[in-house]
């Protein structure tokens, strides 16, 4: 049962091959058995899962048959789940049982999904390796000595190890796409504003987007269909009808114009990954696509701009974690200042504190223009690059990451080295365009991902291309040994 995709599960449940409750119990047992190797879960929600599974079975018996009815999933642990610990993988949210559900959680629950647990992540979504979690690092099921990517590392590891068919993640600088690439999954970051941020604990408000990780584009389409949509509670949510992503999957690719940015293939990219990318291009050409070289001239400036904007917004977003109304409070604070400094000093991990300080500095008096404002200007340049490129091409294709999954601990002492891993993914967040990563093969037994980018609200296009590619290849069907 654990090998089945969401789409296959939907068919099996409809055919009454098994019940949602049986499937849920099976996966709960599997998780208990195998997750100690991965550490992908922070909290298991057995009781909730069984209740939801039984309810789904009842709805099915009453005649309902939605694509996600009875589907087991997990939520990245920054989606608020009512009365369940929502930790953002941080000590500072110890004991925080969220008093409400995130919109994403509500929508998926309404569609009948079954939540098996809350998934590990980099603390407050700040990281590319899932090594900064208060609950310990997550291991890559493809090689337990390596990182699964981050910040949605737990989501990726759990799905890649077939502990779940799908999971929610969030992507601020690549945190869905990059772990998907490192664990042989398909993951999509929708257009900014496509998925509601209500209840999705904020890292960088103008960059964060929620999205699914799964083993196929089809599964991502099923998840995204339920997750997407206008939410009046989120002022940045876009009031635009949600496309039929399933229908979009089957469009033939004849005439698709693909752009390959020349800036992607410079020094810094593992040449073997570059080869895999070109192999994908060849396949897509066989399916009728054409390819041309394009330029994204300001791409190189994306990382510095991101590492001003994201920390700046985060430094403000994380000020509410102060030990007063929820979460961790230090022992015996002697005065207010002590309450704040020790609760936050003890509650936040090192990377989070670093980014808060960078952000605080960037916004501080005298530096705002040189840092924050400058970064916002570069942001516009990056957006302009994409707008110009999409005049000539329908999708932009390239590697998702410059390197394969690295060893645990390898980049710990050098945060900047880790930051540079985000080079391909970050621009999509800055511009707000949708981006997808799909499996494209293996190097030394480690997965390689290829990224597709599209204009605003063309998630359907991305899922379409990935799905068509997955009809003629089978990278995405491979499972890691032992899982």
């Amino acid at each position, binding site marked *: 049962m654990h090998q089945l995709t969401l789409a296959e599960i939907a068919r099996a449940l409809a055919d009454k091959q098994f019940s949602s409750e049986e499937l849920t119990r099976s996966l709960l047992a599997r998780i208990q058995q195998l997750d100690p190797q991965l550490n992908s879960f922070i909290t298991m929600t057995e009781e909730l899962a069984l209740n939801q599974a039984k309810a789904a079975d009842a709805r099915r018996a009453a005649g309902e048959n939605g694509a996600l009815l009875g589907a087991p999933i997990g939520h990245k642990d920054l989606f608020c789940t009512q009365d369940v610990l929502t930790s953002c993988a941080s000590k500072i949210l110890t*004991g*925080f*049982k969220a*008093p409400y559900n995130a919109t994403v959680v509500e929508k998926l629950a309404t569609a009948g999904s079954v939540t098996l647990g809350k998934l590990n992540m980099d603390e407050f979504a700040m990281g590319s390796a899932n090594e900064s979690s208060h609950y310990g690092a997550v291991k890559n099921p493809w090689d337990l000595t390596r990182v699964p990517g981050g910040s949605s590392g737990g989501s990726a590891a759990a799905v890649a190890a077939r502990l779940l068919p799908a999971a929610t993640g969030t992507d601020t600088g690549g945190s869905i796409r990059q772990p998907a690439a490192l664990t042989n999954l398909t993951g999509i970051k929708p*257009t*900014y*504003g496509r998925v509601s941020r209500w209840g999705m604990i904020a890292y960088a408000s*103008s960059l964060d987007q929620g999205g699914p990780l799964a083993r196929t584009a089809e599964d991502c389409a099923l998840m995204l269909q339920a997750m997407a949509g206008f939410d*009046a509670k989120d*002022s940045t949510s*876009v009031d635009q009808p949600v496309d039929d992503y399933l229908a979009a999957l089957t469009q033939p690719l004849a005439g698709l114009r693909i752009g390959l940015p020349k800036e992607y293939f410079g020094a810094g990219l593992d040449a073997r990954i570059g080869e895999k990318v070109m192999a994908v291009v060849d396949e897509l050409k066989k399916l009728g696509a054409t390819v041309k070289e394009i330029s994204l001239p*300001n791409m190189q*400036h994306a*990382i*510095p701009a991101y*590492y*001003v904007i994201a920390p700046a917004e985060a430094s403000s977003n994380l*000020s509410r974690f*102060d*030990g*007063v*109304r*929820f*979460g961790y409070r230090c022992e015996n604070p002697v*005065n*207010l*200042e*002590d*309450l704040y*400094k*020790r609760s*936050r*000093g*003890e509650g*936040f991990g090192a990377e989070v*504190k*670093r980014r*808060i*300080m*960078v952000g*605080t*500095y*960037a916004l*501080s008096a005298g530096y705002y223009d040189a*840092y924050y*404002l*400058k970064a*916002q*200007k*570069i*942001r*516009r*340049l990056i*957006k302009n690059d994409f707008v110009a490129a999409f005049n000539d091409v329908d999708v932009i294709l390239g590697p998702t990451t410059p390197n394969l999954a690295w060893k645990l601990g390898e980049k710990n002492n*050098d*945060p*900047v080295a880790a930051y540079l891993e985000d080079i391909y993914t970050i621009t999509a967040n*800055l511009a*707000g*365009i949708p981006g997808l990563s799909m499996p494209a093969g293996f190097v030394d037994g480690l997965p390689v991902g290829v990224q597709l980018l599209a204009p605003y609200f063309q998630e359907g296009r991305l899922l379409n291309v990935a799905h068509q590619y997955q009809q003629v290849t089978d990278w995405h069907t491979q499972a890691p040994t032992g899982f």
Partner: protein
Amino acid sequence: MALERSDVEKIADLARLGLNEADIPGTTETLNNILGLIDQMQAVNTDGIEPLAHPLEATQRLRADQVTERNQRDAYQAIAPAVENGLYLVPQVIE
């Protein structure tokens, strides 16, 4: 633009982050590395470019002026570290 120890202390103070004495030199060095990365921005010519705050450049929607929230103090305070008589307790605030 290199940060000194005193700068780091000021920033940590602004952000109310208690830093261990022992960590300050390491933190200073790491922050300077990050700032080195960020400073690469200065080489970019952005004359005449408008800052982009929101990627889709949409505008704010307005909400009708209605009260739809009801009192849920008990539920919300169940997760609070310290409350008494419905108030959140903190070390004394002196004005």
